């Protein structure tokens, strides 16, 4: 079995164990969240040894060259020396500016970054609290339109970061941000292509950013935003999205509520309603955000409905593990 050399210790990897699991087992907690190679919270750097390609999947070329790797996806065959990533070089400071309830469960959190964050609306960043807690949140703001960074935070039962943001954090509190990350964003250059934006819960955050970004960049093709909720009270940004639809003839907002009838929404499963309205997605660009099961199902349905694989952007909000 291979050995992980970490902080002057040699720790033998158990069968089928990732570097992250190995270090946790031996009393070295490494910041982490999704444990699936998506959020990049568990980034480490190898100083010696050979990294399996899967451990560097999705990292920037410059980071790969420097030996950065994702400890949750790293299953080395040979000995590896690993160090914690120097926090300061990868993170930027931010401060809570503003909190506001968007509905009973979703909080708008506005942060001011202490140095400019270069991002595309729809990407996500990791919030890192001073005690090491890390969680991912999608950007709902648009750099060209908004001075600060906007996030939508759903209160997760037992959620450490969401609980803290909802109940304790107050303007002036400090956080660190890592990122931005993710490929789910609008790319200019094909302004007539129709766009399908579909999400559940706070999957609306990236979609709201993407829609406003596309409209701001002069997108002329149809943009259909479908937001799925179980009950009417789960909807949010209803006024803002309705106003956006009034102001832009090519933008339409389709709230879907599964378990309640009402005149302001369609009572339906969001994916069923979207695909009934748009049965042929050939030539469309598709953005899917939120519940991971739904995102994966709709990704497949959208592909079978004619969307090209390259035109489907899926951002599954994975629950934080461990």
């Amino acid at each position: 079995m291979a050995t992980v050399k970490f902080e002057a210790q040699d720790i033998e990897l158990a069968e089928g164990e990732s570097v992250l699991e190995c270090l946790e087992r031996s009393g070295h907690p490494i910041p982490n969240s999704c444990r699936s190679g998506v959020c990049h919270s568990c980034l480490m750097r190898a100083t010696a040894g050979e990294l399996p390609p899967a451990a560097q999947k999705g990292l920037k070329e410059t980071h790969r060259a420097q030996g950065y790797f994702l400890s949750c996806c790293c299953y080395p065959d040979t000995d590896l020396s690993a160090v914690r990533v120097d926090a300061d070089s990868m993170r930027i400071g931010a401060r809570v500016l503003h909190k506001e309830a968007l509905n009973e469960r979703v909080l708008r959190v506005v942060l001011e970054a202490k140095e400019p964050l270069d991002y595309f609306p729809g990407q996500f960043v990791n919030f890192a609290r001073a005690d090491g807690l890390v969680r991912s949140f999608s950007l709902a703001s648009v750099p060209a339109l908004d001075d600060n960074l906007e996030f939508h935070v759903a209160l997760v039962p037992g959620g450490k970061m969401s609980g803290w943001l909802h109940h304790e954090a107050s303007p002036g509190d400090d956080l660190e941000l890592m990122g931005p990350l993710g490929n789910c964003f609008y790319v200019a250059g094909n302004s007539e292509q129709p766009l399908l934006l579909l999400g559940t819960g706070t999957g609306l955050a990236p979609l709201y950013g993407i829609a406003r970004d596309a409209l701001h960049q002069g997108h002329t093709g149809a943009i259909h935003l479908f937001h799925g909720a179980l009950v009417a009270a789960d909807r949010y940004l209803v006024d803002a999205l309705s106003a956006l639809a009034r102001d832009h003839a090519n933008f339409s907002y389709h709230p879907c509520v599964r378990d309640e009838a009402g005149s302001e929404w369609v009572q339906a499963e969001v994916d069923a309603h979207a695909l009934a309205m748009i049965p042929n997605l050939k030539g469309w660009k598709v953005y899917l955000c939120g519940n991971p099961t739904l995102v994966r199902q709709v990704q497949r349905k959208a592909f079978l409905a004619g969307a090209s694989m390259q035109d489907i952007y899926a951002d599954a909000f994975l629950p934080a593990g461990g």
Partner: protein
Amino acid sequence: MSGLYEAIGGEPAVNAAVDIFYRHVLSDDRIAHFFDGVDMERQAQKQKAFLTMAFGGPHNYTGLDMRKGHAHLVKQGLNDSHFDAVVEHLSTTLSELNVDQDHIDQVVAIAESTREDVLGRSAEPDEAAQV
């Protein structure tokens, strides 16, 4: 074999074929369930690597990779009928892209050469006897 790859149209042809091929595969009830719950983007990359190989293009697949990569599916019952279905979709895809029959036959022959590895069987009778 690089002659075949170029004759079919190289990487652009592979890119054109991936969506068509993958859509055929996922629409086929005989085999679609093997793809339940897989990461579609990762799977599309694998399809692309497979098509590149089948088109006679550059690849670094080995028989062992094929065995390892499909072992969990063999446990779920992957057999010759499923392999036949995939080859059928490969052939249909190429027809739709107007590839001529001679080249289609060559692609099918390359795909066929992976059958024993994909299905986790040995081509060597004496090795098979050990199983």
